[in-house]
């Protein structure tokens, strides 16, 4: 169990909320919460306001943070207006406040030596990768990035983010931007061309599973940020589990909010949705 001891709960103010493509880029004045966030961490936000019928928080990957500025520490998110909760959030005006808990969960591990890293993002899954890219660059790594989405509007890639990486490849299912197809199709070429030694990924679970297959084929380390439905985000409800092989080789249903969202892709038992993998500790006896 990896409780993020830096987590705080606080009421934070929205200091910017801009629509960018299919997403909203939102900035919150979070005080010293910004100091403690690492790439891969997420925050959990109450949605709906008083009298809301929505009782659960929504989790959002941290896009980036700034320690100080006009508003003190700030924290940024990339939010897709999807269902009732995210639509409520993205419709909030400047200066509205929300209740935020964070930073939560595990973060991307940074190699101790400079390596060639490939960052793979699907949809809003690109968000945590830009902060990660900066950190990797600071550590002397070469950073290449590939982003995929169904169409151009769903690629989140701000200009300064693009500039920070050594190369940027885009794929869209409909071909409206970059290469037509899925990110997976371009991975082998990029891995070979840039001599990739580590892959970081964030996006929908099927994409992560596919990236792991490629990583395994090439014998490359793969750290991924998973996304399983979370009721609490703080480790108390056991809803967000995924089957994970632990240090002793035992498979356990592990909480993606505490032992994740960032996990070693090789340890995840992929494609098990809908069943408990054989051999999991405490698996149902039939």
């Amino acid at each position, binding site marked *: *169990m990896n409780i993020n001891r830096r987590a705080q709960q606080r009421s934070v103010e929205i200091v910017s909320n801009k629509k960018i493509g299919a997403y909203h880029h939102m900035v919150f004045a979070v005080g010293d919460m910004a100091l403690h966030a690492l790439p891969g961490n997420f925050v959990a936000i109450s949605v709906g306001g008083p009298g809301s019928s929505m009782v659960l928080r929504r989790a959002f990957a941290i896009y980036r943070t700034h320690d100080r500025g006009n508003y003190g520490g700030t924290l940024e998110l990339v939010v897709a207006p999807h269902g009732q909760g995210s639509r409520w959030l993205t419709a909030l005006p400047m200066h509205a406040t929300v209740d935020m808990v964070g930073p939560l969960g595990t973060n991307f591990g940074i190699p101790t030596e400079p390596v060639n890293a490939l960052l793979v993002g699907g949809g809003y899954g690109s968000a945590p990768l830009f902060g990660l890219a900066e950190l990797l660059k600071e550590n002397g790594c070469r950073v290449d990035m590939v982003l995929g989405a169904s169409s151009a509007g769903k690629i989140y890639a701000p200009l300064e983010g693009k500039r920070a990486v050594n190369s940027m490849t885009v794929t869209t299912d409909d071909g409206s931007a970059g290469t037509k197809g899925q990110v997976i199709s371009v991975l082998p070429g990029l891995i070979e061309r840039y001599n990739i030694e580590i892959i970081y990924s964030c996006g929908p679970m099927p994409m992560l599973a596919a990236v792991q297959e490629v990583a395994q084929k090439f014998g490359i380390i793969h750290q991924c940020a998973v996304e399983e439905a979370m009721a609490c985000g*703080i480790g108390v409800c056991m809803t967000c589990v995924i089957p994970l092989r632990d240090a002793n080789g035992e498979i356990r249903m592990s909480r993606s909010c505490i032992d994740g969202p960032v996990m070693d892709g090789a340890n995840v038992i992929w494609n098990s949705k809908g069943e408990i993998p054989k051999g999991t500790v405490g698996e149902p006896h039939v």
Partner: protein
Amino acid sequence: MSHMSNFDFATSFNNTSFPNPIFTASGCAGSGKELSQFFPLNEIGAIVTKSIMVKARSGRPTPRMAETPSGMLNSIGLQGPGIDQFLAEDIPFLIKAGSRIIVSIAGESVDDYGSLARRLRGVPGLSAVEVNISCPNVESRGQVFACDPIASRAVVEVVRRTLGGELPIIVKLSPDVTDIVAIAGEVISAGADGLALINTLLGMVIDIDLMRPKLGGKTGGLSGPAIRPIAVRAIYQVHQAFPKVPILGMGGVTNGRDALELVLAGASGVSIGTATFGNPSALMSVKEELKSLLIARGFSSFKDAVGHAHRSENE
């Protein structure tokens, strides 16, 4: 404000007393450790641990949750490490944190409950045992114990016999029954010292895009504010029938007003479950709000408010 400091917030179940009546709900506070970064665990009445079984258990496949209007469904399936690891790891942490502890146990057979009670005998630092009987009985084609008066009685008898008079036994009932007062009567006569009301209600959500049940386990337990009126009714009915048996009330409590409703209906303690998911510090705010509301209504002691809604019309 001198008045406030005189307020007696303590409650008791059988001979065990607690400094205040706010508890976690089983399965909604992890092992305690996870909440301890949001408030000191000794600030609340007790931690009710998640229901522990004899052996380790993986629980149900995902998705395990679905949000519903003012509530949620869960189908965790009692994931847990089994009693041995639980006693070796979780209990020492809670004791060190100064927390009072109510251990919740769950079994698949009457024997399981006996084994669990045996393992708890003599464990230092426990305040009570909560017996979760909302579990399928594998010896009775999976019928939930709490839905069958005979099976409920058998479980409580074996726990009582095994534990002796050592620890108060609080039996947690399911609202999914035709007559909850009758089940309460059975378990009381079988030796329960107190009752916990209510567990979740069986529900289902269908994903209208996949056009299948949303949860991996198909059905799940409904909790949260949506079920509060059911909890209040169950507590009221059972307190009316057995006014001397203390009740640990739960079901949709998110603030002090909700907690007060349950107390007035007859709850001697209030557990907070789903509200913690939405607000990690809910236990603290419920505690403070309940205290203020009681003081504002002129109560000098928490115990005076328990079941107050039952007083006769001319009082």
